[in-house]
């Protein structure tokens, strides 16, 4: 083999090794959770209330709480995020103000989630007097996911070919018509993907809900948005660290449900994307 050939082998070998290093923990984490948690899974586990001080029974209230949080957070954050992204990428001129806004969005994405929790506590729980409630928690999660939604939406808009815009303008369409009829339809799969991925993120966050919504244990399901709720990630934390003597498969089963939920979201995101691609 030539010198160049050897170098190439070494180069690609290193790259392959790095790739494998990425995959190994994923396989390991999912594998462990499935192996240790599978035996706990059943319809009863998913759909009944916990009993005996959460040592037995199901995780239904935590599951319901997480679904509530996700739905409310997305209902709040998706329209605002998408509209902001459309404004920034299709209308806003490149000036000091928009650069500042961009900077703010990037920094918002980098703020640690526990800080968001504190922010939610002071703004929604205390200042706006929403109390420790689903609405406070969901709004906190929503604010946290805004930069994700804005960034993915802008990415989706940016990937729409320039010629679609030019053609639309050249046919006498206004800027709004161009966005509405020429740009958005092509960007929707990308926007939906971003939205679903951010749902996954919302579902799994613990810190932001810690101060704003999450309850240790509730005997009843929440009745309204101003009730507290249990949530999967926080529930997992409690049964893993706060209560001794919880069976292992019960803990890993909860983790499995959480991971499974996110996985289902991600898979449906890619299905939506490929459906839209085919339609063209």
């Amino acid at each position, binding site marked *: 083999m030539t010198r160049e050939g050897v170098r190439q082998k070494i180069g690609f070998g290193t790259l392959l090794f790095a790739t494998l290093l990425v995959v190994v923990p994923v396989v390991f984490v999912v594998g462990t959770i499935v192996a240790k948690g599978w035996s706990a899974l059943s319809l009863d586990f998913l759909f009944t209330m916990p009993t005996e001080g959460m040592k037995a029974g199901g995780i239904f209230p935590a599951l319901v709480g997480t679904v509530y949080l996700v739905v409310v957070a997305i209902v709040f954050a998706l329209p605002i995020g998408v509209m902001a992204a459309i404004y920034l990428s299709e209308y806003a001129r490149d000036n000091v103000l928009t650069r500042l806004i961009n900077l703010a969005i990037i920094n918002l994405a980098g703020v640690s989630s526990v800080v968001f929790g504190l922010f939610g506590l002071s703004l929604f729980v205390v200042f706006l007097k929403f109390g420790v409630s689903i609405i406070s928690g969901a709004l906190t999660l929503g604010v946290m996911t805004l930069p994700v939604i804005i960034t993915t939406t802008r990415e989706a808009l940016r990937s729409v070919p320039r*010629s*679609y815009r030019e*053609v639309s303008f050249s*046919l*006498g*369409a206004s800027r709004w018509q161009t966005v509405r009829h*020429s740009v958005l339809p*092509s960007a929707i799969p990308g926007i939906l993907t971003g939205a679903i991925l951010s749902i996954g993120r919302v579902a799994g966050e613990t810190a932001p809900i810690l101060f704003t919504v999450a309850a240790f244990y509730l005997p009843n399901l929440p009745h309204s948005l101003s009730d507290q709720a249990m949530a999967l990630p926080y529930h997992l934390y409690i049964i893993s660290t706060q209560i001794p003597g919880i069976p292992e498969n019960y803990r890993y089963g909860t983790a499995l449900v959480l991971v499974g939920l996110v996985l289902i979201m991600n898979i449906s995101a890619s299905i939506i994307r490929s459906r839209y691609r085919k339609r*063209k």
Partner: protein
Amino acid sequence: MTGPAPSPKIEVRDLAVHYGKEPALRGLTLDIQANEILSIIGPSNSGKTSFLRSLNRLNDLEPRIRVTGTIRLDGKDIRRDVAVEDLRKRVGMIFALPNPLPLSIYDNIVYGPKMAGVRDKKLLVRLVEESLRSAYLWDEVKDRLKNSAFKLSGGQQQRLCIARTLALRPEVILYDEPCSGLDPISTAKVEESMAELRKDHTIVLVTNNTKQAARVGTRTAFFLMGEMIEIGPTDKIFTSPENKRTEDYIVGRFG
């Protein structure tokens, strides 16, 4: 032509286009008569496309581009006296590469009329057939109007784009190197439709292909490095140009 000289369809006065600080076109003054085909030839970076895109204000989309001077359409300043959407309906454009929207053939053609507020289904159907016939595409696609425009061949796509522009019933049609990506047969069809369209449209054709300019243009203008070197009847430009550089370009000594 008989009677008094008609007022020009388009009057261009002192037009200049700058990309940032770079001039792309300088001091252009010319008239375009109704129902003529004005071909514009010249090497790349001669300002041909910058000129064309000034005529429907497409340059305005790019914040870096600055356009000065005046252009009048039927005597009205296109930047002061005409709404930009109306201008673009009256001055249609065909781009260098076919660029159908990701819609059906039918929906591509009705896009412009629909944006302009046409809701009458019968009128839309009639527009689709008329436009496709004028673009010499009707017979090839009449049975599959609901199919995606992306399934057509390159040449068919370009004729679809022509039909789409015609559906707005424009008065002026701008062609920006419309055949640069097409095979000779498709090119012939595009040129054929152009000759037919000339009867009730004013056509400005930018082309890299001097032979095309010689075939279809009633007048030809030669651009070089942002300036118009010469303009005249196509026969004269191609047989006895006044400027040496025009002759050099036409016989292929540069460009």
